[in-house]
């Protein structure tokens, strides 16, 4: 039995959020959804203010309260590696898992994925133009269907043989960090055992691997950094999370530095205003 998990060294983290971007690209998640999310927070009062950064992916709990409350077993914990997954084919979209998870890491698909990701499922002129451009682009590439579709994300996952990876899941179902399950199941040795966020981090903050195996990357890293402060998020929640942090723990007085994240609807609206070419090619003019 193995249990995938992460060791995240927040002492090194600079809050650049490259992992958030990598996750979005890798998993094609809808706007406003951050399967990997880095808190930028501050503590204390002027002039003694300190800043800190804490990445907060799904903690792939050993006792996942999200799976307990799911009325369809769509949310479940995979025996073989302890990854907590959502079976998009059986999720009824009740959002109970989201309500039942203390970490705030679940993201519902509020719109059609195409609308959610690109804002062009609405059948207006701009949307049609964008779509046409994309289709042409796709034909230039390999014509595999949708330039925006990562074919790897369409794959089915064991043990159920249904799609459980990727953030382009059907409207009305729940998504969250999958520990890049499509990589773990890809059969590709370069990809298995890695996640996009881990790979992209310029200063090796994230260490992904089997927490049960003393030889794994995260366990080795823990051993190396034995003396650093070690903690888990909401350790008392009973969920037994599998993300271990090293370094300073945000105090209860930590305040997020963003008052709000960009509103999804506003982002979609803003993009509607843009030149269609901007959305597909290399920039274009922002109007």
């Amino acid at each position, binding site marked *: 039995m193995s249990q995938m998990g992460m060791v995240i060294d927040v002492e090194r983290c600079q809050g650049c959020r490259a992992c958030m971007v990598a996750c979005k690209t890798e998993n094609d998640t809808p706007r406003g959804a951050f399967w990997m999310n880095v808190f930028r927070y501050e503590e204390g009062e002027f002039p003694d203010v300190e800043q800190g950064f804490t990445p907060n992916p799904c903690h792939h709990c050993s006792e996942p309260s999200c799976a307990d409350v799911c009325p369809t077993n769509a949310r479940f914990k995979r025996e073989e590696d302890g990854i907590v997954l959502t079976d998009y084919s059986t999720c009824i979209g009740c959002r109970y898992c989201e309500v039942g998870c203390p970490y705030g890491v679940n993201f519902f698909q509020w719109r059609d994925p195409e609308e959610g990701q690109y804002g062009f499922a609405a059948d207006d002129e701009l949307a049609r133009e964008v779509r046409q451009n994309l289709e042409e682009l796709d034909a230039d590439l390999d014509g595999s269907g949708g330039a925006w579709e990562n074919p790897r994300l369409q794959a089915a996952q064991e043990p159920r043989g249904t799609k459980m990876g990727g953030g382009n899941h059907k409207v009305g179902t729940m998504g969250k960090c999958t520990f890049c399950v499509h990589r773990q199941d890809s059969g590709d040795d370069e990809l298995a055992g890695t996640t996009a966020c881990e790979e992209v981090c310029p200063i090796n903050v994230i260490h992904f691997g089997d927490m049960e195996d003393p030889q794994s990357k995260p366990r080795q890293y823990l051993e190396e950094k034995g003396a650093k402060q070690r903690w888990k998020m909401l350790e008392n929640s009973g969920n037994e999370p599998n993300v271990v942090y090293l370094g300073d723990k945000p105090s*209860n007085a930590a305040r997020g530095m963003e008052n709000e994240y960009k509103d999804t609807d506003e982002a979609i609206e803003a993009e509607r205003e843009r030149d269609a070419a901007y959305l597909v090619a290399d920039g274009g003019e922002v109007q």
Partner: protein
Amino acid sequence: MSAIDADVERLTEPLRRTSSKFYVALAVTAILSLATAVAYVSQLRFGMAVTGLRGWGTQGGVPWGLYIGTFIWWIGIAHGGVAISAAVRLFDFEEYLPIARIAEILTLIALPMAATNILFDIGRPDTLWVMITNWPTTVQTSPLTWDMTATFLYFIMAGTYLIITLRTDLHDCLQRGTLPSALNPLYKLLLIGYRPSEREKSAQMAWWMAIGILLLVPLMSGGVVPWLFATMGMHPGWFGASHGPAMFAESMTSAIAAVVITAAAFRWAYGWDDVIGDEIFRGLNKALIALVLVTLWFLLQSLVTGSYPAAPAETGALTQSLVAGRMAVPFWLAVGGLLVALAYLVAQALRPSLYSVAASAVAAFLVTSAILLKKIVFVVEGLLYPTRDPLAGMFPENSYWPTIPEFTMAFGTIAVAVLIFLVATKIIPIVELEHASPAPDEAAESDAEVTEA
């Protein structure tokens, strides 16, 4: 001796005569129901993005809102309705017999309306059947599964209960020819295997059913429904053991209020001043006084425990927001509604001259609307301050404001319910005939009593 001072002819009047008031009500509710359907279709078409709901956490929203609040409210009403009728049967509260069936029908309509709100809330209604195939495992841990199971069980019991008590009436009416003949196939279906000798048996069965129903009510209204929330320890305002009894009290309160409103509507529509007599409303008003007090008392409990500095931080923040923060307006509106209604109810109890059916109906309306608001506030408040430190301070502040489609659908279920009720009055006798006086030509002496009011 009969428990209802009216003859069968008058009580079956709704089945035979249709007034213009009825058509107006039918048209209005049909239009509103249509609007509900249209809004739902648009939600299916464009996704749940048409609601004001969003993820909690980085999206700064709440994932459950108006639909879930309205769902709990309907469940509460459902439990009160049939509970009244069961209590009437079990404890021989004969004077309440005229409203027993009204209350039962209210339950049978309220339960599907509750389920409809759940349907509105889920993202993929086309996948709903999975809940059935996975039932054996999910029932072990998922409160939502418990809830669906209990609701279904309850619907079956309440339905059976109504049919048992209805068969005798239908049989009698068919013999008298007081039923609309167009629906004869339906009546035949309901009367399959009917023998006049089943009267006694069915009375017994109904009695046992009543016991079952009364036992189930606290388990549901004060059990599985509050457990949907009370088991989620990360949401302040939801967690705790007292939500069971508190929610039970609220449910009973709004259910009795709903019965008052419905009974008053029938009395007004059919001039049944003598059938649904003043003593019934006075009695229900008394019950409401007690129940509103209990509801307020539970509220006070949570306010007091939440306002002390030693309260857990999130609970403190939440109480603060109810008392004087972002949730203060809906919260105090709900409390105010209850207080105003209570003031009237107490006044009319002390000074009988202040009593009137219309005023009682208005008070009941205030009570049940206040509880609907309270339920919505309850759902939202737990998600506005959703999590524990250190996460609590690091997420952006959550907010929620329902959209027009959401309002249309959630409150539209009220119009749908009224519509179904209106149709029901054209299909079955709405007052139990078994206990009514015989028709005037059969026993002329009962006339005196009828006309006196």
